[in-house]
Structure formats: C-alpha cells, structure tokens
C-alpha cells in the first residue's frame, strides 16, 4: 500500500466505491478501522489483505481491491459482521467485490471439482465463486 496518501473528494466518492456500496447495501464509510473483523476472521491468514484493509481500499476508491485474493477466500461465515461495532457487514462487501469481478467475466477461482462432492458443497461453491 502507498506510503503517501492523497485524499480528495473524487477519491472518496469514486464510482467504484459507490458501486460497491450499492451492490452490498453496506456503507463502507461507517468503518473506522478498528480491526475486530480481521481479528475474528478464521480465514484471514490466507488472505492477501485483511478484511479491514479490503474495506479501506473500498473507502479510498481503489480498484486494486478487485485484484485481491481475499474475497475469494472469504467463506461468508459472517464472523466479521457480528463483531463489527458499527454494524458493517463486511461479508456483503466481499460479495460485492466478487460479483463485480464475476459480472465482468473475471473468474479468479474457477470451480473444477477434483473428486465427488455432496451437492451442498457444490451448490455453495458455484453460488459464491462463479457467475
């Protein structure tokens, strides 16, 4: 992440941020970066950016958020959502980031079953990870 930060109204109200807000229904600017979500996320160790960092990028209108692996490792368990003191459901934000990629035809995590799975696993995987 950049060491110098240039804040301007354009950056803070970027179309990207608005789109994420619209799709998720969650106000990214409510987040004050306390980090409880990241502390509680069971999958944070496998993410290239912590949940609160992902949200930070959204706040700053930075489309680098779309190129992260973090949203694809999120399991929608909502541990973040129940811990957030501001009631921000970061899982919805993660889903919005996934959908913005998927709807553009970018599928970083194609689902190719390597062995038999019960339907519940396949239904969930296709639902969250494919367009």
């Amino acid at each position: 992440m950049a060491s110098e930060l240039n804040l301007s109204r354009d950056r803070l109200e970027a179309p990207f941020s608005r789109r994420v807000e619209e799709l998720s229904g969650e106000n990214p600017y409510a987040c004050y970066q306390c980090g409880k979500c990241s502390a509680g996320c069971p999958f944070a160790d496998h993410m290239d950016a912590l949940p609160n960092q992902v949200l930070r990028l959204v706040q700053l209108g930075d489309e680098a958020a779309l190129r992260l692996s973090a949203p694809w490792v999120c399991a929608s368990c909502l541990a973040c959502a129940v811990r957030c003191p501001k009631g921000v459901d970061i899982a919805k934000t993660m889903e919005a980031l996934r959908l913005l990629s998927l709807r553009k035809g970018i599928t970083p995590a194609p689902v190719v079953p390597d062995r038999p799975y019960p339907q519940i696993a396949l239904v969930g995987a296709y639902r969250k990870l494919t367009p």
Partner: protein
Amino acid sequence: MNEVTVFIMGKGYRVPEGLTIMKAMEYAGYRLGRGCGCRGGYCGACATVYRLRGDYRLYADLACQTPVQDGMYIAQLPFTPAERPPYQLADLQPRGETLLALFPELARCVACNTCTKACPQKLEVMDAVQAALRGDIPQVAEFTFDCVSCGLCTMRCPAEISHHHVWQLARRLNGAYLTPRALHVQKRVQEIAAGVFKSDLDALLSLGRDALVAAYKAREIES
C-alpha cells in the same frame, strides 16, 4: 383456404392454416437440411423457438408437431452444443454422487423453471433437475422418459446444465442397476444355452419349404 402469416428467418410468408411449422417452412420454399429428422415428434431434431404477436413470452416446441399460428415469429436451433463427459457404465455406481461428479453444474440450478417452460414434451424438467440433485435416480428416469434430447432446455438454462445428457445417464444407471431384473428372460436365455430347445429348432430347420409354410399357417396364435 385460410391463410396465416408466419415469420421465418425474419421474413413473412402466407401459409395455409393447419400446417405444422415444418410443413409451413417447406411450403414457403425452404429445403430442410438441418433441423429435420423423424417428422414424428420423436427425434428432437426440429427444436424451434418462437414468439407470438403482442406476447412477451418465448415459446419452444418441435416444428413437426406444432401447428402454425398467425403472427408466429420463428427461429430454429440447428444443434445444441452440450458436451458429454466420457464414462463407462460398468464403472459407475447408481448414486446421486455419480450424477454430480459427471455433471457438477447441476448444482448451479436456481430453480428458475425456464427449462420446464422450454420443453416441447411438457416434461417437469426442473423437478427432474431437483431429483438429480437429491440423488433420486429412479425419479429422474421416470420424469424424463419422454425426453427427445431436443436441447431446448439446455440452450435456455442460465446455469448451463446439459439436461438431456444427465437424463440419459440417469436412465442408463436406472436400467442397468436399479430396475428389477427380467428374471424370466434370464431363465429363458439359460435354457437356450443349455440346449433345451435344440431338438425343436433342428426339426424346424430340416423341414422343406412346403412343410415350413404349412407349419407356419397352422401356428398357434395368441389372441
């Protein structure tokens, strides 16, 4: 003779009422190289989609079975691309897991019912997908018995499922493993192999033509 207007490839033609779409196309001068098969509603080659004037709905049917309507706007599917994974029936287990392993996209079904609306055989296609998802192979076989593999459901499906390939596998698994065996057939085959009918067959083969004809005319007929 009453005539109606149908639109084939976007062009309007006046055709006699009462013709099927297929006959109407030929009446209009088309020679059908693709999209035409048994002409009897059985092979699924003539899958057709159409709209009617003032109706938002998209209809789907077999051209050889569907009478024309005034204002029908027709397009045909020459072929439905639907890859089928290779498998050996003898290596498969008759379980839901098998269907999902070969066709994992079944799990993408959102229960939108578009497949059912597209089916010219009026099958309960969505219910068949759901039965497949549950692993209920006999139910899938029952629901899809009349499927003609026209591919209309597959073309329309947002989840990109290749329905007719799934049905074929399910019916094959059902027939090979789950339906009751025809024991009387097995018994008869064993009897034949054991030579129970050998002397009767030999006697028949040794008859001359006239004796054979007489024996045929005098045969026992079940009524």
